[in-house]
Each structure stands twice: as structure tokens, then as C-alpha cells.
């Protein structure tokens, strides 16, 4: 009933969950991404945050920065939310849901570092947030143009009539996902990564990496 047009990228589907024409699915490829996100979210749930050590220059003093109390709870929550949004984006069978989940990952990334009190981290978070807000134009624009041109947003339907999705829509969605965060192109994201509190901060990079791997799969399938 539900068939991807091409099995070269993700392999045969392992599991489908249809809601009308929107079919959430796992292929071996997306299942691997999902399991990766799941494992990392579980690590965020069970592990204690790192203690970042800082040496005061010219002395023997070493400062340990600890993440405790409310701060710890909030950041753990945001990291878990980021993981869940990532899992949603990986599982989603609908272009618009995917773009929404990508935007949610962007919000959660801001949330993870929002309670850090260092000015350079907040600065980086603010600049990252501006870019991710601007990136919602190509993201939603790409999804909207897809809907206008083909009449559907379901990845299954689009892959059945491939190559139906206009090139401009593909390009826009790719640019949007890049704007939401492909780590190496982002000076701001490298700064975010300097915030203390390791497993939560690493979620920033993991989610961006998984978003990128997933968008590649979508772009090749439709």
C-alpha cells in the first residue's frame, strides 16, 4: 500500500503509522538516526553534568563550574525536549511537520544555553536565534511552495510521483535546515558549545547533525 519510490537511500520501510495521507515511517536509515537520538536523550536523562575546570592565568587556582539546582533541571528539560523534537523530525512523514520540528530544535537549542550567565554565550545564543528565525522563511516557504505545486505534503505521496517537488522548494528547505544549524558553518554555534554542562550542550550538535542527515534523505526521496 505504502511504497517509497526509491529504495536506494533509506532501504525498505520497517514500520509505518498512517494518519490519512500523512504516513510516519521508519526505514533502516531513519531508524538508525532515531535510535541514535533516543540513546543520546537517555544519556541526557540519566547522566550528571560535567564540571568544567578553568585555570586562572598566572596562578595555581582552578575553578570548577557546577551546574546545580533549578538551572540543572531547566537545562536537562530543554535537552530532553530537543531530543524528542529530533526524534519527531526523524520519524515525520510530512514536509511541514519536519520543518516545524526543525524550528522546535532551534528553540530548544536556545533554551539549553539560555540559563547560562556568561555574556559571550548569551550573545552567541541571541545571534543564533536571529538566524534561526530568519531561516524559518525558507523552511516554511519551501513547504508552502511544495504544497502549492503538488497539492500534498506527504513524503510518501511525493516520493510516489517523484520528481514532483519543485527544485526551488528543495533548495529552500535545504537552506532553511542549514540556517537552523549545521554546526561547522556556524561561528555562533561553536560559541554555544563553550557553555558548561556537557551532555546537554552536546545535544546542540547531535540534533543539528541528525537534522542534516534526515533532510538529505528527504531531498533524495522526493
Amino acid at each position, binding site marked *: 500500500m505504502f511504497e517509497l519510490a526509491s529504495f536506494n537511500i533509506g532501504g525498505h520501510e520497517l514500520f509505518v503509522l498512517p494518519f490519512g495521507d500523512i504516513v510516519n515511517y521508519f526505514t533502516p536509515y531513519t531508524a538508525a538516526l532515531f535510535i541514535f537520538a533516543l540513546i543520546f536523550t537517555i544519556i541526557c536523562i540519566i547522566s550528571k553534568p560535567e564540571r568544567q575546570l578553568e585555570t586562572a592565568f598566572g596562578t595555581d587556582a582552578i575553578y570548577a563550574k557546577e551546574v546545580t539546582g533549578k538551572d540543572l533541571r531547566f537545562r536537562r528539560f530543554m535537552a530532553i525536549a530537543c531530543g524528542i523534537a529530533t526524534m519527531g523530525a526523524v520519524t515525520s512523514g510530512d514536509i511541514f511537520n519536519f520543518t516545524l520540528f526543525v524550528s522546535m530544535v532551534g528553540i530548544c537549542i*536556545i533554551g539549553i544555553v539560555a540559563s547560562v550567565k556568561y555574556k559571550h554565550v548569551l550573545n552567541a545564543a541571541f545571534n543564533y536565534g536571529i538566524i534561526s*528565525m530568519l531561516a524559518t522563511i525558507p523552511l516554511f516557504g519551501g513547504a508552502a511552495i511544495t504544497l502549492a505545486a503538488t497539492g500534498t505534503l506527504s513524503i510518501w505521496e511525493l516520493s510516489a510521483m517523484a520528481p514532483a517537488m519543485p527544485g526551488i522548494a528543495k533548495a529552500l528547505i535545504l537552506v532553511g535546515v542549514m540556517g537552523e544549524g549545521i554546526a561547522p558553518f556556524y561561528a555562533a554555534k561553536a560559541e554555544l558549545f563553550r557553555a558548561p554542562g556537557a551532555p546537554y550542550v552536546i545535544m546542540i550538535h547531535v540534533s543539528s547533525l541528525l537534522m542534516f542527515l534526515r533532510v538529505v534523505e528527504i531531498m533524495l526521496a522526493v
Partner: protein
Amino acid sequence: MMDDYTIGLVVALIAVIITFYAAFREKNDIHRLIIADLAEVSALAIIALIATDLAEALIIPGLVVGISELMALSEIYLVRENLNRPVKEPFRIEVLDTAPAIIAAILVIYGIVLSGFTGGVVAGTGMVFYFMGKKQTERFALVETVSGYAWAFWIVAFFIFMVLPEYWFFAVMLAGGAIFAKVTAKMSLIGTMRGEKDV
């Protein structure tokens, strides 16, 4: 000859280009934040051009995502600039001491009659006016909690539609009441949570 959709798309893209140009030229952070919000609006305009029910259903989550990004960024801006307190005294004139309770009561009652999204917005406007006039600190965290539970009830109503369609009337009432409470609570929080105690 171009059809309407293409013309609309071209206009929206011109707006996007202007916004991007402004965003790259602007150096003041608060202005960049506002420009980024304008950019979100043009993204919604591109979705709205499709002009179907589905487009309408896509605008609401798009709007929510945009607003939550805006709120997260404003919060970061406030923390970074140490703007925890209002920088100037709130606006006071005599009518703000007497009128709010009456007007708020009228709007809230009318909102209850309307119910749903629209009623929530009307009642929320009344609450905003009340809080603006009264300036005392309320327990806004409680209002926020009510909003959260109302949202959960709204979702429960959708599950009733899907799983037990024969109880549709109950679900409609539940959804209408819950979305009313949620929108009212959310609206009433606009501009009121300023980091006081117990907030």
C-alpha cells in the same frame, strides 16, 4: 499573464528580500529582533498564499513557533542586558483606577458567551486591560498552570473525537471551554510577567 498565486509569491519574495537586506544592515540588537519577527510574518504570508483550509491549519503552528522563538530571544536579550525591572514607572491616569474592573467584566462575560478562540481573545483582552490598570502583582504562575491544564483538556477532546466519536457533543463543549481558558490565560500574560517574586 501570471496567475494570482505567482503575483502574490513575487510580492512576498520581494518583502522577504527587503527584510533580509534590513537584517544584514541593522546593527542594533533589539531592531534585529523585530526585523526577524517581521521575517516570520512574511513566511506566514507565503503559506497563506495557498489559500486553502490546509494552509490555515499550517499557519497556526507556524505562528506558534515564531512567537515562541521571539519570546525565547527576548528573554535572552533581557538577561544579557540585565533588564529585570521595568526601566520606567508604569503609565498612570485616574481612569485606570476605576474603569478596568467594569470593562474587564463586560469583556470576560462576552468572551464566555462567544467561547472558543474568539471568546478567548475577547476575554483575554479584558484581562490584559485589567492587569494593565491594576499594577498589583498577581500569581501569574497559577494563571500559567491553568493555561497548561486547559491545553491538556483541549487535546483530550481531540482524542474523544478520534476514539469515541459518539460523544462528540461532550468533546465540542470540552474543546470550546478549554481553548477559551487557554487563550484567555495566555493573552492575560502579555506584558505582565516582569520577573517579580512568585512569578
